[in-house]
């Protein structure tokens, strides 16, 4: 299976300062890497999901995600902004670390979905989040995420 996370999917010093801006960065990365066919569709999908309930959780982390026909292969896009953006997170802290999960509409296999669910689980771990924050390069961060989604611990 093709890797869902690659160093090219990561932008560590994004200048976006609004929710819309972050979604645009995510969508642009998706287009550049052939993850999606339409940037507008990706932005729209992320916005729709966000309007249902916030994807921000704590310590500046948020996981905007969407499932859309415009997405051609499952991927994890990571954007880290220089400034915090209000994301209505649970702890009221502004978000700056966005792990975006992009899933094709017709995702048949469960493998990818399970990988994403284990990433979600890993994110609840304070140490794991700290490691993500400490990562200095795209490669380092991609490696950490790769570990998180492949080491599925069963219940």
């Amino acid at each position: 299976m093709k890797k869902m996370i690659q160093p090219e999917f990561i932008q560590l010093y994004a200048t976006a300062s609004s929710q819309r801006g972050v979604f645009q960065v995510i969508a642009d990365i998706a287009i550049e890497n052939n993850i999606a066919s339409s940037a507008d569709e990706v932005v729209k999908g992320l916005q729709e999901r966000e309007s249902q309930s916030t994807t921000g959780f704590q310590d500046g982390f948020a996981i905007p995600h969407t499932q859309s026909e415009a997405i051609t292969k499952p991927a994890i896009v990571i954007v880290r902004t220089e400034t915090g953006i209000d994301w209505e997170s649970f702890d009221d802290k502004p978000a700056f670390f966005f792990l975006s999960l992009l899933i094709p509409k017709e995702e048949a296999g469960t493998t990818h979905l399970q990988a994403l669910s284990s990433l979600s689980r890993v994110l609840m771990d304070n140490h794991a989040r700290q490691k993500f924050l400490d990562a200095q390069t795209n490669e380092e961060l991609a490696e950490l995420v790769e570990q998180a989604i492949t080491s599925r611990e069963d219940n």
Partner: protein
Amino acid sequence: MVRRKIVAATGCPTGIAHTFMAAESLKKAAEEMDIDIKVETHGQVGIENGLTEEEIREADGVIVAADKDVNTERFHGKRLVEVPVARGIRDPKTLIKQIVNEEASIHHVKGHTVKTETDDSKKDKIESVSKGKKNIIHSIYKNLMNGVSHMLPFVVGGGVLIAISFLFGIHSADPNHETYNEFAAFLNKTGGLAFSLMVPILAAFIAESIAKRPGMVVGFIGGLLANDGGAGFLGGIIAGFAAGYIIILLQLLLKKLPQSLNGLKSIFLYPLLGIFLIGVVMTPLMVPVQELNTSMMEFLSNIQSTNPLLLGIVVGAMSGFDMGGPFNKAAYLTGTALLAEGNLYFMAGVSAACIAPPLIIAFATVFFRRYFTKEEQNAGLVNFVLGSTHITEGAIPFAAKNPIVVIPIIMLGSSIAAVLTYMFGVQVPAPHGGFLVLPVVTGAIKWVFSILVGSLVGAVIYGLYRKKIANNLPVEE
């Protein structure tokens, strides 16, 4: 200790992220609270880790954190907490507590309701009998904790107010003394009032944990009786448990009364009979407490001139044992009586032994920070203030959580402080005030040294104990 079991189901509309974050969050919280949990996830891939009928039956309760239907009919007759998925991610401990503390209501599904009354009460009965045996230690701890956590703010708020009043001079609250200051007297009185509620609140909420609101009422009165009788916080713990079980007993006895009298029971019969019974139980208990007090004071006066080692151990152990209870008070009152006779040595040891307990707690929360909760860390810092001003009670909330282990540690630390004080021949002419009276202490540096040594030894042992019960893992991030 038998573990509590909880089952949970999580789900969100997309079923990609939050379902699993909530599941993980609940699992982590349960792990920290030493509770078994199984979480069923309703994600996009379908239901994973599904709950079996048996697991649901055996669970103490069910948590549903979902923004979609997770088929809650299965949970008929169980305690159920139902919240949006976000609460499951953000606030898992509160949800679990609602099950563990039995605050969550029983889930009734329409159509099942006809037979629930008899069914449930029967099942409850069987459950409570078998659980009662297995979970005794756990529930005692839980009840104690409920009392302690409600008592803590009274100790901290009242204690600090009293400590501030001492800054105006240790006799500043006494209208007949030359240093009398109206504001200090006001602080002292207000803080003292909060302090006097410490034991009643402890008893009330131990009882509340056992028998809900009827228990609280009776526990409060029991605690007041213990307080009036000078039985200290150990008396309060006894009162709390007695009150809780009095209500449980009454509930059993009054079970036969017709349903139509249910309202009358809770507003009239439980308070009336409960308060009467706690009086009957506590009053005779208080008589030996007072006799104990008198005979201990005689005993202490008799050994006041024996060797400093023995005297220090006795005084330290007594002061540290119940921190404001009859033993502590006997030592303290003997000290003031001897002070009036011109013996300045005896009081020095008592003061040292009374100052050490809060300092033991304070140092432990600093040196072994990781093994205390945030709340405890903050209360620990306040104990520096309380210890320095001879307000022994600051240590009570910590001791009450596990008296059997913590009290001996405190007694040891207090004894060391007292023994050293007597060996150095320190003289303290004031009966209270802690380090604020240092200017009039003869051998002030030796005195502070003695207290610090005792406190640090106690703090290290207490800290290591906390580390051990936390399995070497930090309590909170």
